[in-house]
């Protein structure tokens, strides 16, 4: 199990419920694959450095989670299917992830 972080760039048109369902879905996938979400960090609406899909604003949400390395591609596959995600970037933070008892 390794610690990863994914930065999502979301469509600014999508409301807070739509965003919440997406995040719930993604954390559901993380948990299903034996991982654990450590942090959800909403950066809010930001001006993009260049237009993406002809939109110059976007909402950034950062997810921090532990996940077995072979399951990351599965999570990314699901992110790709979501229409409201413009861009995403997954970075490995640490090789070890201490699982908290839940």
């Amino acid at each position, binding site marked *: 199990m390794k610690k990863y972080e994914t930065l999502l760039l979301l469509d600014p048109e999508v409301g807070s419920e739509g965003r919440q369902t997406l995040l719930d879905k993604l954390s559901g996938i993380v948990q299903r694959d034996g991982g654990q979400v450590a942090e959800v960090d909403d950066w809010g609406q930001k001006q993009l*450095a*260049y237009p993406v899909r002809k939109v*110059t604003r976007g909402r*950034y949400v950062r997810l921090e989670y532990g996940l077995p390395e072979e399951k990351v591609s599965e999570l990314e596959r699901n992110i790709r299917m979501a229409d409201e995600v413009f861009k995403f*970037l997954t970075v490995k933070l640490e090789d070890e992830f201490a699982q908290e008892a839940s």
Partner: protein
Amino acid sequence: MVFKKFTPRKKFCRFCANGDLQLTYKNPDLLNDFVTDRGKILARRITGTCAKHQRQLTREIKRARQMALMYYTATHSTEVRKKTV
């Protein structure tokens, strides 16, 4: 009159000198110091960054570009577009 020879200020690696500086793609304000106003990554000999940190810096700048936190080139920049349109 004797002119003193011009001696440029000694450059140093900002990341070695200041351990608090977080070199990550999530901090585009800092990374913007290391690119030209056209968005090109500045050479090590100009900024004085050490080899180790320059490698990390390049990687993080490229990540920031991917996520639209920084622009690839100024002609694509949202700010430039606003002025020209």
